[in-house]
């Protein structure tokens, strides 16, 4: 399964995503520059963390206009898996591929810390290899990670089983402890924590691998069956 890692000029977790997928998961991965019109022959998209265009405006507000986002939207519409991590989640929300918004952390400060996430659904391309209720350890590193949306949307997310992960201890004020969500079709996921930073023991946790493994399984139903 070939992963494409989108590179905006200010992406700074692009190498980390590549390393996690290529070295720790053992799958091919390539970088895709933000002004590309097409994605090439990839099977999954990762929008990595960072500060896409500096994010002096709202995070991801400029990135949604990058040419590559048209291709990413098409890829998602065609059913391809799209994973947005941290800034990637912010970009997906700005681009309208996921609902809600990510606003400043409740304490108004950047927070880098290991958190615990509770897996809320296994019914997705990103969580199929996990178990409901499984707690994953991985870090957050963001200043604007407080998930926010209106009550109706929150109710809808819950009713449709689209909350993928919740914080066990809410670090940033996210409504209903939401750490990651799915789109209606369940092939686009955004999450603020960094699974790519938890893919080998030296990083302090390997729990993030389950998300990437799920993506591989979803793409290869045969492997899943075995």
């Amino acid at each position: 399964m070939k992963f494409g890692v989108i590179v905006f000029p200010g992406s700074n977790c692009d190498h980390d995503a590549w390393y996690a997928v290529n070295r720790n998961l053992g799958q091919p991965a390539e970088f895709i520059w933000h002004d590309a019109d097409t994605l090439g022959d990839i099977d999954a998209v990762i929008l990595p963390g960072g500060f896409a265009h500096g994010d002096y405006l709202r995070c991801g507000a400029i990135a949604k206009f990058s040419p590559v986002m048209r291709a990413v939207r098409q890829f998602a519409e065609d059913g391809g898996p799209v994973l947005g991590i941290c800034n990637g989640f912010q970009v997906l929300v700005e681009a309208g591929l996921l609902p809600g918004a990510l606003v400043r952390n409740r304490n108004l400060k950047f927070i880098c810390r290991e958190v615990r996430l509770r897996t809320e659904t296994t019914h997705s391309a990103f969580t199929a290899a996990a178990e409901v209720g499984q707690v994953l350890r991985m870090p957050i590193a963001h200043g604007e990670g407080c998930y926010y949306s209106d009550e109706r949307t929150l109710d809808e997310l819950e009713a449709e089983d689209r909350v993928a992960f919740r914080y066990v201890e809410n670090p940033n004020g996210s409504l209903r402890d939401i750490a990651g969500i799915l789109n209606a079709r369940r092939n686009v996921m955004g999450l603020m924590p960094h699974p790519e930073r938890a893919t080998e023991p030296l990083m302090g946790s390997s729990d993030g691998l389950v998300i990437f493994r799920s993506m591989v399984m979803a793409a290869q139903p045969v492997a899943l069956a075995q």
Partner: protein
Amino acid sequence: MSTLAITPDLIAQHQLTEPEYQKIVAILGREPNYTELGIFSVMWSEHCSYKSSRLHLKKLPTRGKLVVQGPGENAGIIDAGGGYVIAFKIESHNHPSFIEPFQGAATGVGGILRDIFTMGARPIAVLDSLRFGPLDDPRAGARNRRILEGVVAGIAHYGNCFGVPTVGGECIFERGYNGNPLVNVFALGVAKKEDICYARAAGVGNPVIYVGAKTGRDGIHGASMASAEFTEESKQKRPNVQVGDPFLEKLLLEACLEAMQTGAIVGIQDMGAAGLTCSTCEMGSRGGTGIEIELDLVPQRETGMTPYEIMLSESQERMLLVAEHGREDEVFRVFRKWGLDAVAIGRVTDDGLLRVRHHGRIVAEIPNRELADEAPLYDRPHIPSPARPFAPSPAQHEIEPTAALHALLSSADICSKRYIWEQYDYQVRTNTIAGPGADAAIVRIKEIGVSVAMSLDGNGRYCYLSPHEGAMLAVAECCRNLATVGAHPVAATNCLNFGNPERPEIMGQIVEAIEGMAEACRFFETPITGGNVSLYNETLGEGIYPTPVLGIVGLLGTAAPLTKDFKASGRAVMLLGGMGDCDETRFGGTEYAKVIMRELWGLPPALDMDYEKLVHGAMREIIAAGLAESAHDLSDGGLAVAAAECCFGPAGIGAALALESDLRPEWLLFHEGPSRILLSTAQPEAVAQIAARHGVEAPRVGVTMEARLEIRNRNAVLVSAEVEKLRATYEGALEAQLRA
């Protein structure tokens, strides 16, 4: 403006003395014009020329078998093996951080990062050494709290966006830093050996190319500002502080590294202090060439800028490079991809002159070498640092030891700095093996299976009591920190923060500290490969403690790190190096003397370098043999504080220590004698054997246990506390003080 008359007043305003001015006239063979006067004033400022310290800096060892590049370039370079090198340096941004904490600190990070990637190395770690006035100072507390919040937010803003992890550092509070906070930033990068770039202008006729941000009027005379004391009027210097744009710096990083890969770049230097002036004349001087530029071609974000302003601007995120003639387009293509300005503004010449044109007219013409390397050199008068005798009355010692331990754990110097470092992304690039809070930070170099350990240390109180011994102790502590995680120290960088060198007692501190540092660096085989001197850290005549800060790097194989916290109960606790010794004089510089007794006297703890080195060797061997489950070096607050800190792991494992000593209880618990590491092990006999072979004491001082820390001497219980209570004190203190 170029025709402005050069009067004695104007010369004095540029902080040039009459003899210095005469030297300028002699070099030029004529009177300088206004632009030239400005150029000389920044290049010959203390900040750029090291005119007060250069004579003494020569005493520092700079050579070693792993040193690829010593002082004189933008950063020092060490061979890390496997075809890779590391580039690192520490630099201060003290003065700007006092005037405008957020931008001052942010641009401090930006400046040192450029120094690293200018060498062709990708930054992979930042550490900070910070000094502030006390947060509870009756007069300046509110301002000190605001400065700390601003500095930390500035570092976070810049480093997080740029994408370099801030993996460690130190943060200390003293009254002397009320008007002079210190912000020293260390950065380290990694490169393939064949990709190293140097800041030399070579090849007559080669184009000189300006890249990055446009030039504005910000930061004019920043270098001169950093070379003077603060007065009541210093707030007016706010416009001298630059504004940082970490996103632009990130683009510059990627573009520069990519452009270097074309092979078309001959030399490159960042525009930091003294901006375009410094980068042109230094590159010309190093290359033995001249440089000619036309200022009309310099990208400018304001109209009507004078040559003086353009040459002295310290606008951030700019680089100057020399490319191979005929291959400019390859370079331009890369910068266009990253959306950056890249313009040929001149060329390399063979006449050794810095020639500056504006609208075609020559507005400055100065020999590069004399401007860059022949700055005045002063052997300023200095007097020996005085003894600081004082005999505290024994009554002052009378405080219950457990209460004293709580007081120390909640003191601003010792308490957890989590509030600070959680604002930093300390993991980006997924190389961080040991991050903030560890004895030494460790980042791996993924390509070669080697990791780099880094430690910053400086103790202003020790150096106030004895600059010579204090500087040696800083070197020893850094090396001990590295040994505690199993690393071999290989090289060092220094940041020398002092007051006004024109005062003989301050100059005495500078000379003694450099000599102490030189002696210790020679002994521990950690050559100084670069650094920075920051003088005139005085406000209204009140100076800082002499604060030389050391940054020492070591190498080790990439593996799971040895951490400080006790892992399981029932393990033997050993004090490698022994109980150490203390007396009335040597207790006067400790945190106990500061926090409990509110005094400072005598001398810093006594250091035996031979013994210190033996301890390091033993520790590394114990780690290599896989015998230690935890290790933590003793420093501020001595044995009791170190033992408490070992209890603050995820499991909250405590310990029962049973000591046998004739020392007074507060000395036994809190003296800061060096050469000691507290470790826990399941195999105490094997540890003892290794220690004995190295000639190092390693008494078994106790055993780990659940949930409590107890320390007895003979039969007297000195400390008895629940781990979670100690932890709450330690973790909550800084935020409580900031909220005051």
